[in-house]
């Protein structure tokens, strides 16, 4: 009785161990199962929704859609966005508020997408870029509107 149990234990042990070894052995001999990719050579294919950083798209005339309404600034939980506005006088002599600088601090951003959701004029979007590392963290403070850019016609 004791002996049969004993032998059964030994047998079962070896069996279960061999089962595991068969699995690892399978992967050892099947190179095609390798799933890792070589990163800098093989670029990852990112989904278009991937939230990498906030950018402000400009068209070819260096125009953006931001009205400076600060909805994104209010929506941001972290104070990532700082909008400095200025008053512009347009052709008809009307005073109009416009953005001076759209400051975006990447090091504070958590990619929560709330600013993009809050924006009434779709001025900012999430870009896919994920390689953010820099040597100086001051480089993380970015100005999103390009120098000399203007607001697009028809965007209120």
């Amino acid at each position, binding site marked *: 009785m004791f002996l049969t149990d004993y032998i059964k234990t030994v047998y079962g042990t070896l069996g279960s161990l061999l089962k595991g070894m068969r699995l690892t052995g399978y*992967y050892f001999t099947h190179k095609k199962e390798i799933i890792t990719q070589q990163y800098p050579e093989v670029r990852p294919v990112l989904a278009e929704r991937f939230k990498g950083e906030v950018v402000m798209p400009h068209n070819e005339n260096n125009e953006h859609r931001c009205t400076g309404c600060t909805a994104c600034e209010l929506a941001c939980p972290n104070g990532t966005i700082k909008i400095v506005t200025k008053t512009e006088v347009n052709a008809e002599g009307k005073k109009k508020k416009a953005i001076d600088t759209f400051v975006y601090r990447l090091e504070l951003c958590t990619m929560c997408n709330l600013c993009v959701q809050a924006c009434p004029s779709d001025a900012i979007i999430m870009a896919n870029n994920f390689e953010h590392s820099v040597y100086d963290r001051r480089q993380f403070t970015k100005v999103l509107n390009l120098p000399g850019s203007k607001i697009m016609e028809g965007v209120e």
Partner: protein
Amino acid sequence: MISLESLNRALQHWLQSTLGDPWAYLVMCVLVGLAAITLFAVLGLALVYMERKVAALMQIRMGPNRVGPKGIFQTSADTLKLVMKEGLTPDGADKFLFNFAPFLVMIAAMLVLAPIAFARNFQIWDLNIGVLYVAAVSSIAVIGILMAGWSSNNKYSLLGAMRSAAQIVSYELSAGLAILSIVVLAGSLRISDIIASQADGWWIIKGHVPALIAFVIFLIAVTAETNRAPFDLAEAESELTAGFHTEYSGMKFALFFLAEYINIFIGCAIGATLFFGGWMPFHIGHWEAFNRVMDYIPSSLWFLGKTLFLIFLIMWFRWTFPRLRVDQLLNLEWKYLLPISMINLLFITLMAILGWHL
């Protein structure tokens, strides 16, 4: 045909004729020392690389592939990194023992090389109690580990060292009994005799099931004695961070690391010698033609191939199994391996007396 044996003989002959007796001997000694050092370095680099590749493939990864073609210089680069690291000695440590321990471990690993037959008639010292010598000297390494753990003045190290001592002390027994079962069959402790006794077939084939059991037990014991997973309790990183070598850094750590791999090599070399005929090519009884063909493969390759195969098995274990707990480890030894190997030895004795082996 160029073989290590003829190379060795030619070298000896040339030295004798040019330098004369005492000088030739001295140069030979220096050459042996240099060869041993080279072997250590090369083995260490190659085995670590092999381990990383084996692990990677089993883990559906590629493993090192950046430094050199297929990453073969990765381990050299790692060694270089370790050389560049500061070898720290903790303030509270017993400085002498702390610095002496890696030396001891290395000396133990180096000494075991003496009786190993790397190829036909290529052996540093073919002493008549070769197997006993190996069993005896290899256990010196425990003292080194115990020393390292104790002198570090670190609680993880201490626990790791204690575990290691308990473990190696226990598995020594079943390793010894497994070795003995082949000694019974071969009738000699001399390694060259044991290899010669396998000229008509390896013991693992000639010895039937009992030899196979002895082999399995030997393999388990070697895995345990070299502190390899699933028996790596001495350095169980999920429990004791790094166990006995927690405090070691830089070159001193590298020496421990190297010694571990050398010990695996030696354990597997002994295993290959005992069960797979060492450098002896694959022979079947008296099939002269077949045996002749097999002899064309150099004996050093046979030895290396068998040893690497056993090393691969041990690596395979490591990358498949979880770690045992410390009391289970001892249970396994005292409740399973030791009784089984004792009974197995009885069977082998019967076989030897009745001449049932081929």
